């Protein structure tokens, strides 16, 4: 079983990302959307959490990163997907859990 997790809240104002990270299994995917994309930026405490989690695939929705002007600050190793890529991720995983 593989699970796709979506997180749409900023990691700096909510525990949503931490809760997701704590429950996500090895081999699962976390897709950061809306204000969740801030978790994918470098130079802050959250960046280390992603860096130290090698068994989970991290993706970010490109449209939401562009809207917020943070594209250039995205951490290495985080895959940028578009809306079609979002749909592919949903299709590739057995279940989807939306953390909001």
């Amino acid at each position, binding site marked *: 079983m593989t699970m796709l997790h979506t997180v749409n*809240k*900023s990691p700096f104002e909510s525990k949503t990302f931490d809760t997701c990270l704590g429950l996500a299994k090895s081999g699962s995917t976390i897709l950061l959307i809306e204000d969740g994309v801030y978790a994918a930026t470098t*130079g802050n405490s959250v960046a280390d959490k992603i860096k130290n989690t090698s068994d989970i695939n991290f993706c970010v929705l490109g449209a939401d990163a*562009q809207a917020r*002007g*943070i594209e250039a600050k995205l951490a290495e190793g985080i895959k940028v997907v578009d809306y079609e890529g979002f749909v592919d991720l949903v299709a590739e995983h057995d279940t989807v859990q939306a953390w909001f």
Partner: protein
Amino acid sequence: MSKKFMYINRKAPYGTIYALESLEVVLIGAAFDQDVSLAFIGDGVYQLTKGQNTKAIGQKNFSTVYMALGDYDVNKIYVEKESLEERGLTLDDLQHLVWEDEDEDYAEKDSIRLVSRSEMSDVLDNQDVVLSF
């Protein structure tokens, strides 16, 4: 007599409506000739980032409106230093907001004032009206 109005901005743009609503209210308030200040705290600092492009999410990019605040005599924009640092941001990541000082032959001056948390605390303490977004 004009009152000191402070608008506190604590939310990131686009994910919720708070940032846009605040900006609308600030622009309306500016028309009433009050002493207006803006504070950007926590995720609110994300409202001022450079290079926002909302084409793909189908929302209005209102980040350009901050550039116009100086023309409405809104030129006291307080940004909390700690909030920037916690998010891995510096002043260079924010738009360069300026205003023209008519008392000094329209010299262009910076609108953003980078303040520490304790300085921000003093700024907030010194207002007549505080509106939170």
